[in-house]
């Protein structure tokens, strides 16, 4: 790749669209007759298509994972993906797609339903991690990739990586599972349910047909985001960042914003619901997909058996202050992999940033991640040397 193209690639990213005509039979039984996946790629696919990495995004993420888009917005994991970065796009061909049911360009609740001529809205079938993996497998075929060098994902993305390793064991060499869990706990589901109730009880929700009514359930979405955001942060970190600091310097004895933390949360909620214009039906759908994720369920709730056919090599990473998907949840994944004598490494990163830590700078995290990516590169190089005719 010439350095000029490299410059261009890191300067502005352009989303592409894959149109799939094969119907997708979803786990719920609903069938999507066809669909579109929006995705971005970074770096160049090598000759034998062995250097491709698929990134799976989290609940509110999208396909714009790295680089700067036309609006000047950096990708959500730009700190870790790019030329010379942890996932080095000078060496790897990186792909990221918006999950089906999303609201950033892939077919979802805001897309026109060909059967009715109106937006899908609440009629869009509920997706599961397995459905997403099946749709991403079409993208894999389209890109001419026989086997991903690695699947990488954090939080919900990490769960998708696990699903890939279980459903398509021969289609990935490595699985990097970050800040994830093998299934949601009752507490996790409860948080999701409160978020959904916040959205659904907003008078502007109109049973999910808010687009047809020309409204958006902004208050509900903002509340859902505020709640979600809370679960991404740690108590310590909020204490350090906000403490009991007051906006006006003294107590007002009313229900306006008084504490800085209130102001911050309201800002986050507001931004999500208005400026970022996130679709409420997508939010509902993503939280449901999280709730349903439980790959062990079809194996008598035995995660070891669920992972028995996985042949990928694993890197599992958790963060000490993450209470949404705590290190103990990652231990469950590691234990199941060890039971299967799988190749697995596990790092527990000390961080005060809670669940959000997987997106933030951290020397130990970066060190572990980078070393593991180097290991993948070394394997690629030795495979290529061996493959060359003497």
């Amino acid at each position, binding site marked *: 790749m010439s350095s000029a193209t490299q410059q261009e690639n890191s300067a502005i990213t352009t989303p592409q669209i894959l149109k799939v005509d094969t119907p997708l039979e979803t786990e719920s039984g609903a069938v999507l007759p066809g669909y579109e996946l929006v995705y971005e790629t970074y770096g160049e696919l090598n000759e034998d298509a062995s250097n491709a990495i698929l990134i799976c995004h989290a609940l509110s993420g999208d396909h714009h994972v790295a680089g700067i888009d036309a609006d000047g917005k950096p990708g959500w994991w730009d700190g870790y993906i790019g030329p010379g970065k942890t996932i080095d796009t000078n060496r790897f061909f990186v792909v990221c797609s918006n999950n089906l049911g999303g609201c950033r360009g892939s077919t979802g609740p805001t897309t026109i339903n060909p059967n009715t001529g109106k937006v899908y809205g609440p009629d869009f079938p509920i997706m599961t991690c397995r459905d997403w993996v099946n749709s991403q497998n079409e993208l894999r075929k389209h890109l001419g990739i026989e086997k991903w060098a690695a699947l990488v994902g954090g939080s919900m993305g990490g769960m998708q990586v696990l699903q890939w390793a279980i459903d398509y064991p021969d289609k990935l060499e490595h699985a990097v599972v970050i800040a994830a869990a093998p299934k949601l706990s009752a507490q996790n589901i409860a948080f999701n349910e409160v978020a959904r109730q916040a959205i659904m009880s907003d008078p502007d929700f109109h049973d999910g047909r808010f687009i047809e009514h020309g409204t958006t359930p902004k208050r509900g979405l903002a509340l859902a985001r505020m709640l979600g955001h809370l679960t991404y942060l740690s108590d310590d970190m909020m204490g350090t960042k906000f403490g009991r600091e007051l906006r006006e310097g003294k107590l007002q004895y009313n229900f306006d914003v008084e504490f800085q933390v209130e102001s911050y949360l309201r800002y986050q909620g507001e931004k999500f619901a208005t400026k970022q214009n996130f679709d409420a039906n997508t939010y509902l759908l993503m939280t449901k997909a999280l709730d349903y994720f439980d790959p062990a369920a079809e194996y008598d709730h035995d995660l070891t058996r669920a992972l028995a056919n996985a042949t990928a090599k694993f*890197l599992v990473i958790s963060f000490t202050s993450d209470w949404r998907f705590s290190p103990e949840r990652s*231990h469950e994944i*590691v*234990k199941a992999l*060890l*039971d299967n*004598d799988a*190749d*697995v*490494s*596990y*790092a*527990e*990163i*000390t961080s005060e940033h809670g669940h959000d830590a997987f997106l933030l700078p951290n020397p*130990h995290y970066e*060190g*572990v991640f980078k*070393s*593991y990516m*180097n*290991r993948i590169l*070394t394997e690629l190089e030795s495979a290529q040397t061996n493959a060359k005719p003497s």
Partner: protein
Amino acid sequence: MHISPEFKLISDWITPNSRVLDLGCGDGRLLTHLINTHQISGYGMELDPDKIIQAIDANINVIQSNLNNHDICHYFDEDSFDYVIMTQALQVVKRPDELLDDMLAIGKQSIITFPNFGHWKMRAQLLFKGRMPETKTLPYHWYDTPNIHLCTFNDFEDLCEAKGIEVVERAVVNAEHRSTLGMKIAPNLLGEIALYKVQKKA
């Protein structure tokens, strides 16, 4: 990569193609050596973040974990390994006796090395200076040492005896990891580092 005589001695006690767990595996040097020379498979466990990175660099399967709190029993079932190795870490854990039980639960045999507090240099410093010993093998002050459970060869063997643990092999080396005739005659006085291979009594 430099392989210490201590690690070479350990290698001699390992059967090829066996399954090995290395507790406190550091940069993965011993496991790498055993993989290259004995085609073993297995895992390393390590707590130190920098060493975790080094072990990943060395292409070792490493699990970040504390050796306290029975962590190894949460991860591994009984008899998961042919050997559970722990070099120079027995003295830093909270309950060496409990860890020894755990090691022999998940592994058929255990190989353990530790600094001998009964070495004459330790005894001499305590006897003549009246101060806690500081030596090449134990270069810490009493207040900042990570070595909270130091013992002598005799202490360790007493513990094995009390627990019904059989000593299968024993070797001693000095700080340069060399073995001398004197050490063989009076190990508890002249040996600086002890190497033991133990198993549960049948």
